[in-house]
Each structure stands twice: as C-alpha cells, then as structure tokens.
C-alpha cells in the first residue's frame, strides 16, 4: 500500500517545490485524486504537466500500488 507521504515524496523527487494534496477516492488507498501545485509547470501545457507527474509516479503505477489516478496540475497562481 502507498501512503500520502510516499506519494508526495515520489512527486517531490521530480518536482521539488510541489505542494501535493491527495484524496483517497475509494477508501482502498489505490484510487487517488491528486492536486499538484508547482511553478515548474509554468509554460508547460497540461499534457506535459501530467506526463511529468506520471514520470514521477512511474514506479508505484507499474507495481500496482496506484490503480487509478486523477490529476490536477496547476501553478501557484492557479493557472
């Protein structure tokens, strides 16, 4: 099983300034909605922001600890 802190660590390894909020959508701690806020996203379109997050979470997605993932990726000024 993966915890919120572990998810946050995975993301912060690739996106150091990321503010991460995690919602367990089904109570099974493997269907998540995550919101990632970072200024590293500035100038990146939505697809590339999400690709960055998928890259950061590649391991727990491949080993099944993450079964389903909804992503919101914004800069600090909410764009």
């Amino acid at each position, binding site marked *: 099983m993966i915890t919120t802190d572990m998810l946050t660590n995975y993301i912060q390894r690739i996106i150091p300034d990321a503010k991460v909020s995690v919602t367990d959508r089904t109570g099974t701690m493997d269907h998540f909605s995550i919101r990632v806020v970072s200024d590293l996203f500035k100038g990146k379109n*939505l697809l590339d922001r*999400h690709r960055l997050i998928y890259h950061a979470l590649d391991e727990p997605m491949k080993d099944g600890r993450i079964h389903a993932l909804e992503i919101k990726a914004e800069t600090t000024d909410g764009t």
Partner: protein
Amino acid sequence: MADPIEQEIQDEIKKHKILIYGKGTKALPMCGFTRETVQFFDKYGYPYEVVDVLPNPAKREALTKMTNWPTLPKVFINGHFYGDTDILEPMEKKGELEPLLKEAFKNG
C-alpha cells in the same frame, strides 16, 4: 513500411474525428475512466468511436509509446492526442474544447 500496428492506429486516428482508446466498448465500458470519457462526449452529441485495447496488449503498448502517456483511456480529436478527461475538462472550462470540436466536424 510502418509497423502494421502503428499503421492500424494511424488509420483509425484519421478515420474517427473523436476516438477513444480504452478498456471495454462504448456499450460496455470496463473501467470507470473509459465510462467517464464516453459520458463526457455524450454531452456534445458528436459521433465518436471507442476502441477496446484490452484484448490487444501489443497495440496498447504501441499507443503508450506513441503518446508518451502511460494510462487509458487515450483520446484523439481530429488526429491529435488529448490525454483523457483530466485534460479535456480543464480545456472545456477554459472554452477551448467547443471550438476544437466544431472545427473537427466543420466539413461534415
């Protein structure tokens, strides 16, 4: 000559203006996100196609490589890749999706 699977994908992308590669079919989506994407496009009333890639792992892998996107569903509009509803919903909110769909279906 292009790899037959990639050729098959390219043909499908050109043929269907809205194309959803997903798990299951339009009538029987096998995963929440595929169902969500089908419902998302049902709102617009434009024709769309769902291609089930569950029975075809090689095709699923080719799509992942082609789009550099690890998950399903994968949505193509007018031949271009747009991820899934995580991408389409923010686009919709910013009013970017409607014109894109109109453009795609402009010449019938």
